[in-house]
């Protein structure tokens, strides 16, 4: 596996605002995903 940005993130898990954990790799496991890292909320 190439050392891609997506491969670095795929195993990480982050919560949504309701506290539900989401494994990042699941976001693009079945189709493309646009992932935007915000500078700030607001």
């Amino acid at each position: 596996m190439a050392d891609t940005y997506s491969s670095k993130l795929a195993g990480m898990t982050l919560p949504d605002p309701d506290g539900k954990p989401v494994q990042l790799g699941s976001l693009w496991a079945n189709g493309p995903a646009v992932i935007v890292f915000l500078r700030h909320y607001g």
Partner: protein
Amino acid sequence: MRENEGAFQQRGAKIVAIGLGDVAYARQFREDSKINFPLLIDEKREAYKVIGLGNANLLHMFRKDNAAARKRAKAAGHRQVKLGKDPFQLGGSFVFAPGDKDLFVHVSETFGDNADPKDILNAIVLPGSTTKSA
């Protein structure tokens, strides 16, 4: 991104935003911004770090490209409501595909350095077409 959410979805892509801060802050942002796409919280900045998203500094505020970006944002009706947990944190935009493929990568180098939504859209491969590389 809000304005382009429909176009991304028409191409079969989901859109997800990741931000710093805590749960309360993210909930408030979700309500204020009325975004419909999922929002995730990277309170410890782990994801930002693992892909090397950097920080700007005060000197970046005086860069010509930042002034131009502020002018564009103001003309488009955007306004900054809050500074957030770390006002110097820079962001980035990506399109990822199954198999951990990077179809599009844009790592911001300064405050106003945002990816062009058209470039993001063009990077999304339509179902059944040949996969592109970043």
